[in-house]
């Protein structure tokens, strides 16, 4: 499904990605772990087209997406969240999620101005978005400005936006970091529900308990290299991995 071949990226002399080879299945939950600076977020940035690799390619199925613009990659069904949350603060929660809906006729100038069929499409999208907002537990905040939510709620909002795109591949950058425990459980349950819907979820996470709970596969990165790959039970038991991580 999503494949990386020999991805290499360096900035200012620092090697962020070194010859990364990756082949991800078409569904499931994969966790990428590693110390800070290992290159995990850079990997996401390269896959989603925000950064160009110095060398190597990314494939979605048979299609080479390496040099595609980010919005085109998103339209092919790859959605992501960011470590420093990105969303519109001055806009309501529901409008944030509405923005994420794909293929909106109203986003074409002709239809936006003539309004033909737009109201109907908006109504359909609104109900889909409300379902998602309810799914994520934010229905009583739907009309509030997104900037007014708590950190954990904002994380859920970005998650909802990510799902709303309808993408089959979700790249989540630290979905539970900095969130309080009850909310973490809620988010993890949610991710398991998504897996059942046949989506591929790739998580970057530091919280190893969370990883053990939901991940089918764990990939360990360090200094731009993948140093281990396998089921969490096996990988996380290896002492050298834990050392590289914690020590």
């Amino acid at each position, binding site marked *: 499904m999503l494949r990386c071949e020999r991805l290499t990226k360096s900035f200012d002399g620092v090697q962020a990605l070194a010859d990364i080879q990756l082949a991800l299945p078409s569904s499931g939950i994969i966790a990428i772990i590693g110390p800070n600076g290992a290159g995990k*977020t850079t990997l996401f*940035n390269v896959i989603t087209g*925000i*950064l160009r690799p110095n060398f190597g390619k990314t494939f979605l199925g048979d299609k080479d997406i390496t040099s595609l613009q980010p919005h085109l990659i998103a339209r092919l069904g790859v959605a992501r969240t*960011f470590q420093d949350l990105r969303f519109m603060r001055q806009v309501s929660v529901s409008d944030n999620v509405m923005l994420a809906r794909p293929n909106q006729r109203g986003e074409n100038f002709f239809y936006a101005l003539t309004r033909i069929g737009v109201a109907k499409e908006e109504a359909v999208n609104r109900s889909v978005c409300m379902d998602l907002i309810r799914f994520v537990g934010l229905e009583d905040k739907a009309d509030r400005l997104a900037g007014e939510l708590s950190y954990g709620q904002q994380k859920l909002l970005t998650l909802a936006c990510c799902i709303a795109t309808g993408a089959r591949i979700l790249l989540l950058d630290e979905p539970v970091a900095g969130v309080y425990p009850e909310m973490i459980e809620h988010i993890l349950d949610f991710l398991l529900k998504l897996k059942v819907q046949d989506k591929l979820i790739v998580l970057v996470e530091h919280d190893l308990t969370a990883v053990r709970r939901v991940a089918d596969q764990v990939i360990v990165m360090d200094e731009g290299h993948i140093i281990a790959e396998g089921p969490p039970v096996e990988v996380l038991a290896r002492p050298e991995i834990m050392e590289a991580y914690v020590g």
Partner: protein
Amino acid sequence: MEQVLVNSIVAASVYALLSLGFGLIFSTARFFHFAHGAVYAWAAYVAFTVSALWGWPLAIGIICGIVAAAALGSACELVVYRTMRRRGASTLTLLLSGLGLYMVMQNGLSLVFGDGNKALRTWPAGEGFALAGARVTGVQIAIVIAASLLLIAVWLLLHRTGVGLRFRAVSNDQDLASAVGTHVDRSILLAFALGSALAGGAAILISLDVDMTPNMGFIGLMMAVAASIVGGIGSIPGAALGALIVAFAQQLSAWWLPSQWQDPIAFGILFVFLIIRPQGVFGQRIKKASI
């Protein structure tokens, strides 16, 4: 052709000073200080007032002009920009306020001095003498020498003094510099004072050669921006090279097009570079918004 070269070098001397000042401000304060053009114009008119109107010696007029420029530039920083920075203003708001300051200062100048041309020169414009196949006046030679000396002096200041070292630390990385304890504010103020003084110097040098016009502030700003973008903002060789390229393009085009197209040509060069190579010849790759 020799005349084109000679004229280019004379014009470039002035542009280089303007561009360097502008670049110093940009590399520390991180935005385009449009009011730089108005500061430039004010310096010339202050010098004019002091020496031609009030009859003081030219040297005094020149000093007053440069001091006035430094003062005006510093005032922009102290009164407006610093206050805004404290409140977390974005580079766009700072840029817009600079536009506003430009309007105020430029029109203040017109208000006080009227719209006619003024001359700083009190001696008649000579024919100049022949040098390597072109005509050049003594004043023009003086301009080139003075500008070169100033460029060298600034380079020495930046690269051979403690003040300069701290200054370059700030302009290379503001986050890093504050972590080390350098006073970012002080370096920014220095940039404004020094950069504006250089603009003042440029204004006076050019006014010794040609008449001052009320529009000179806009032209000065344009040349500062054009030379900075073409050469690469914030580097001394960049300022010099950018200035030479712009001046040369202008002088060369004067062969084929009527002279009033010279300024649009400069803007055209600026435009081309902005599209093709916004970091200029010597500038570093500008990092896009980091993720």
